[in-house]
């Protein structure tokens, strides 16, 4: 047992850190340090392009498709350094989710058509899974795809809607699950399709979060035509593809790197907020909370490392990974809530800078961003399989209940 990285790994870590320092534009860094999860399209592409030029655009892919051929340690250190340096996480839907599915289930033609655009970052994707009546119970989805044939060939006709679709308003393409057969068990009769968002009949209706941000959308399909060539895998067997994909999604959901960066900002904030003649550092009750959060985060960090670098390596990680999602989001929420509490009366303001000279100077992060992040991150325990679903997965798959 050895909790240190070897010299080569440390060298690699330094290289990544240097790269980010030299290549991450300040405006993007600022957005990320303000805990923005979803960046404007232009920023996503600008940063992805910088990585792509370095050969790090889609490092987790197999080498023959443009991946970096890294070891588990390198992947881990790359994601960690990226987050610690306030760089955006990889664009999730195309790079992390769809591409591995195409490589596993897609035809050669599909791989050739879609992977290059994802690799360069030219084409952005969104994910069409959730529906108004299919949230945690994903398999009960109803959005219909009917096979039809006309002059232009075989195609599916889609009717219905998808909801809580992140990035639908910036994406070029959507991959998603659609109902092609309702006769059997609900997991049967689901087909995995890729849809051009510019298709006729696609309407994107923005949804506003309670804290005022626009991240997700409802997407309506009115007789939208999708060529059969855009089907991944076999008709009615999309649930298998989805399960493969959801297995991928669990990795990295601990978001330890991001939380370490947030915690660093919280600790700076505590030094910055003045109370009487001192600062929040003098408030032992508040500092207890910070200490508690830091310890909890360290426990999660080592747990993730144990799962990744234990016997069998990351390949052997099963449903245990669900606990990384649960604790990861709880700790994220805790840190951002503490930051908001640290502001005291300044927690009220929906503006970026407090006007007075003597007023609190928020160093790297503005009160408005802290509050917004606190509110916004309540979503993290809901999305990507709610924490309740994750616990049920652990109960069944790990504890055998």
């Amino acid at each position, binding site marked *: 047992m050895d909790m240190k990285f070897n010299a080569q790994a440390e060298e690699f870590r330094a290289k990544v850190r240097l790269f980010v320092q030299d290549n991450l534009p300040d405006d993007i860094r600022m957005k990320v340090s303000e805990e923005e999860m979803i960046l404007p399209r232009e920023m996503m592409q600008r940063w992805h392009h910088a990585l792509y030029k370095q050969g790090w655009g889609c490092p987790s892919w197999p080498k023959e498709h443009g991946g970096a051929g890294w070891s588990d340690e390198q992947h881990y250190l790359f994601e960690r350094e990226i987050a610690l340096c306030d760089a955006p996480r990889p664009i999730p839907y195309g790079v992390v989710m769809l591409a591995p599915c195409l490589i596993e289930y897609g035809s050669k033609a599909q791989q050739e058509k879609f992977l290059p655009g994802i690799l360069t970052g030219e084409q952005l994707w969104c994910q069409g899974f959730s529906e108004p009546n299919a949230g945690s119970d994903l398999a009960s989805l109803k959005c219909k795809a009917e096979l039809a044939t006309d002059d232009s060939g075989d195609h599916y006709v889609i009717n219905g809607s998808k909801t809580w679709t992140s990035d639908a308003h910036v994406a070029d393409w959507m991959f998603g699950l659609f109902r092609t057969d309702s006769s059997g068990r609900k997991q049967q009769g689901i087909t995995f399709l890729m849809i051009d968002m510019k298709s006729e009949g696609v309407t994107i209706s923005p949804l506003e979060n309670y804290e005022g941000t626009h991240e997700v959308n409802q997407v309506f399909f009115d007789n939208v035509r999708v060529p059969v060539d855009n089907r991944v895998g076999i008709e009615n067997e999309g649930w298998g593809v989805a399960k493969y994909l959801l297995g991928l999604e669990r990795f990295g959901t601990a978001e330890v790197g991001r939380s370490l960066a947030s915690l660093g900002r919280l600790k700076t904030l505590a030094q910055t907020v003045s109370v009487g003649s001192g600062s929040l550092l003098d408030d032992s*009750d508040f500092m207890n909370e910070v200490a508690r959060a830091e310890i909890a985060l360290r426990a999660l960090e080592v747990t993730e490392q144990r799962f990744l670098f234990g016997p069998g390596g990351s390949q052997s990680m099963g449903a245990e990974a669900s606990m990384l999602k649960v604790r990861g989001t709880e700790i994220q929420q805790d840190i951002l809530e503490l930051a908001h*509490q640290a502001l005291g009366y300044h927690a009220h*303001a929906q503006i970026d800078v*407090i006007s007075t000279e003597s*007023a609190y100077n928020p160093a790297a992060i503005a009160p408005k961003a802290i509050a917004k992040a606190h*509110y916004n991150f309540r979503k993290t325990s*809901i999305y990507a399989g709610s924490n309740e679903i994750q616990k049920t997965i652990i109960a069944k798959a790990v504890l055998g209940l």
Partner: protein
Amino acid sequence: MNFTFSEEQNLFRDSIRRYLEETYPFENRAKTLQHPNGYSEELWQSLAELGWLALPFAEEYDGLGGSAIDSMIVMEEIGRALLVSPILSTVLLSGQLIANAGTESQKYDLIPQIGAGKLKLALAFAEPDAGYDLAQVATSATKEGNGYRLNGAKCVVFNAQSADIIIVVARTSGHANAQEGLSLFLLDPTMDGLNLKNYRTHDGGCASDIILDDLFLPDKALLGDIGMAYPHLQRVVDQAAVALCAEASGAMWAICEQSGAYFKTREQFGQNLGSFQALQHRLVDVYMKCQLSQSLVYDAVCALDDQDLPKGQNDFLKNADGVTKTCANKTLAQKVSQKVSAAKYHVGMDARSVGQEGIQFHGGMGMMTELPIGHYYKRITMINATFGDPRYHLKRYRDLMYQPINSAA
């Protein structure tokens, strides 16, 4: 001992709820918030007509002589309806401060106008570097000829931009966090040299940061006695803190009810959400928190009402052991403060947790702006950041704690 509301109080609550349901349904709220101040003048005049603005004041100042219980009823319904208005700043803070600290002529002059909806006020007490300590006041008022010169900065002055008068807490003597030497000044917001930075708050309200840069005020601007503001301020803020607890309690019950209703209709995996035992037990936890927090609101409200009894009639301390008559008043005030902090701590912790569970229970829908759930959570968060958060009040309670026990009713 009796926890039954009077018939008048029940009718009063019904009328408030009906009024708010009719004129302030949640579906229209987002539009109302677009007013520059977050509320409409018509709404304010209606509140005056309904008597809400005169409620807590004595009848000699055209008030209705309502009790803390009556105010609690209003605030619980405001919490449920997510009403944004300057009631806190005008009535509960400024009006009560005038009623407590003002001279008779100031009371006769100002309070009837407040009750009639003709005068709006704001109270500038918080300072950028003060935390939640009311005595931490760096803003200075220096005697100069027939007036005072004010210098300093105030922050998060609720509803300052729509106020006719701003009451400013300033230090006329004493060191930076002394309770002695604080005075109150009435300020015309339109006067020269006053610098207001206005902004919206996360819960839909308005506030301002204010710079006082060598501002000269005449002697008559002084509210009440020089240097004696602190006990009045503390008392009024304690009262207002309890009112916010009542508002939070109203929000908590609404979240509990709306979550229960959602559980009964929302289906997942072929069952109502409410049939999942893990969710059942968590909603029970939410329900228990609503009940327990409600109890501490009552406890603090009754203590405030007892404290308000005319001298001599107060039998609140009847059963306390070994308390001499002379220190009875101070002990009483301390007991009230302890109950206020108990409520503000407990309600704050529970409301936070109930708000978070409410969002979680609603899944993706809980994050949407078109449901009230998230807006309750924002309001609860802002209530916690007003007059001291739960951590602050636990500390305050802890510091007041070492009293003989077994004496309370």
